[in-house]
């Protein structure tokens, strides 16, 4: 009824209303067009360096050094990818294996250790809990650079320099303050009833955590997985100071060797770009698959922070 009446009312004042709405619609259409144009141009600027990287990776070394640049190489040098991985003296198979070992073990450490600490902070009642949580928060904010030198000396004292231990062990000791925080925040949003029911059935705390709480926390699990994977895969500083034997190098360290391998002063850009794309690839693939959860996790950590 009300709809019909308002319809007829608009019909009454038909001609001026229509012209106003037409210009209004045009203006809105115009501003939408500008909006999308700006968004597309912004996206192009975000992607341009990657396009550039891909284009260079598919060129001959000589074609890379032309101005203005040739965007679509002819012929396309697919062989650059294989060539960049088989530079004499640079066993990239070993470098990838090292990186995968370190990333997997450190990631596992984060995923095992952080939920346990977080569960205690979110679900168990014990004196001093708030103080410990405050410490966790403070650790997230703390600039870590001040701890680097004594940590190095400690690991050197244990004879662990030039092993993977300094790159893996810290992840197992509590799983990282930020991950603990993220899991705790997520656990707090879950109902306690399930825990209590399981407890009455005689389940232990760890069983409850692994069988009930974690399976319900998939967004947090996915977020920490991606964060942790990306962090350990890309990490440069720790491998740089702890690994000096080339056979133990990670892919990040190995990229710096490509530059040193070439005889000329400048790096061989085609091979370097091909290799750096290969090194980035696992992170990009993981991001595309997990991005929905990943974004939710960042939001969770950001908003509640």
């Amino acid at each position, binding site marked *: 009824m009300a709809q019909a009446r308002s319809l007829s009312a608009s019909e009454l004042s038909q001609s001026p209303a229509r012209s106003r709405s037409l210009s209004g619609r045009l203006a809105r259409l115009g501003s939408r067009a500008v909006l*999308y144009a*700006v968004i597309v141009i*912004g996206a192009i600027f*975000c992607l*341009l*360096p*990657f396009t*550039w990287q891909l284009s260079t990776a598919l060129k001959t070394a000589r074609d890379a*050094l032309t*101005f203005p*640049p040739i965007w679509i190489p002819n012929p396309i040098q697919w062989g650059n990818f294989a060539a960049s991985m088989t530079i004499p003296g640079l066993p990239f198979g070993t470098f990838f294996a090292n990186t995968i070992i370190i990333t997997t073990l450190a990631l596992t450490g984060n995923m095992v*250790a952080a939920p*346990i*600490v977080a569960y*205690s902070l979110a679900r*168990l*009642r*014990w*004196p001093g*809990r708030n103080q*410990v949580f405050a*410490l966790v928060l403070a650790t997230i*904010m703390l*600039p*870590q*650079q*001040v*701890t*680097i*030198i*004594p*940590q190095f*000396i*400690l690991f*050197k004292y244990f004879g662990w320099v030039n092993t993977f231990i300094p790159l893996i062990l*810290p992840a197992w*000791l*509590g*799983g990282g303050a930020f991950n*603990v925080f993220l899991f705790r925040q997520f656990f707090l949003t879950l109902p306690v009833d399930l825990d209590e029911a399981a407890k009455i059935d005689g389940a232990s705390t760890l069983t409850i955590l692994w069988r009930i709480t974690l399976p319900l926390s998939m967004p947090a699990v996915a977020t920490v997985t991606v964060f942790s994977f*990306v962090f350990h895969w*890309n*990490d440069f500083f720790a491998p*740089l*100071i702890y690994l000096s034997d080339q056979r133990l190098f990670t892919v*990040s360290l190995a*990229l710096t060797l490509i*530059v040193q391998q070439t005889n000329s002063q400048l*790096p061989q*850009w085609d091979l*370097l770009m091909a290799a*750096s794309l290969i090194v980035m690839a696992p992170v*990009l693939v993981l991001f*595309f698959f997990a*991005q*929905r959860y990943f*974004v939710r996790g960042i*939001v969770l950590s*950001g*908003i509640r922070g």
Partner: protein
Amino acid sequence: MAFIRQRSLAQKEAILGWLLVFPWLAGFVLLIAGPIIASLVLSLTAWDILRPPKFIGLTNFHDLLQPGSHFWQSIKVTTIYAFVSVPAHTVLALLVAILLNQKVKGLRLWRTLYYLPSVVSGVAVAFLWQWVYDADFGLANWVLWTLFHIEGPAWLVDPHWALPALIIMDIWTFGAPMVIFLASLQGVPEELHEAAQIDGAGAVRRFFSVTLPLITPVVLFNVTLGLIAALQMFTQAYIITNGGPGNATLTTMLYLYQNAFQNLRMGYASAIAWLLFLYIMALTLLVFWSSRHWVYYQSSTDRKGEQ
């Protein structure tokens, strides 16, 4: 009976609680709290690891703080880097978040594309940007030439342009704050906008009077984390310019690394670490302190009236 049982249950829970956080506490003591104190002690020594450390009092600090020292240069570089890149990438992140909050189609695709630069980090990206800034054949100068017919500078080998180059590279990775802003914008209640619109407020006015005050806590969050990260910048300066040309991009972290791990001056480097630590803490506290004047907490409006 029931009372005793209850108490023992509570005790059990307390023991279990402490037990479960023990690994984290052990890590905290061994890898964070202990090292912070140790590095303060080390900063009072001269130590090359090979021979025993020698106590030299405040000499390291005295040397570092000499006018015209490399340390001051590194603090200058680090400060410029942080003070330009953090506001720039926070503002850009907010602008893009506002754009994407206009009920655009394909939000997920755009968000992914804008976030992409922030996922990849480290050495691979550093090399990519080194190539982008190549003076003769690089992407940066091609863009300048194509769009504006400007002959670009020699970026990384020009002392005036090397640091701006690294700042632009940092601004490119605005994805994380953008996603957080986007979520907070979506949390701004629609009614407030409608009410302001009825009162005759235009889009710009609505943004500054309604939206911005509501998301100031998120601005604080992004600025703080961005600042702490920017003040510890290392990889780009190490890979792309190695501090050059002429120390124009010598960040404090890079200077610390050179002293500790290339020259084995552990005491000296610890003093750098502590000074940088104090500097970062001071700036963080300053941001927090100032936030009382510009951050608006919805739940604290009542208390504000009392003050």
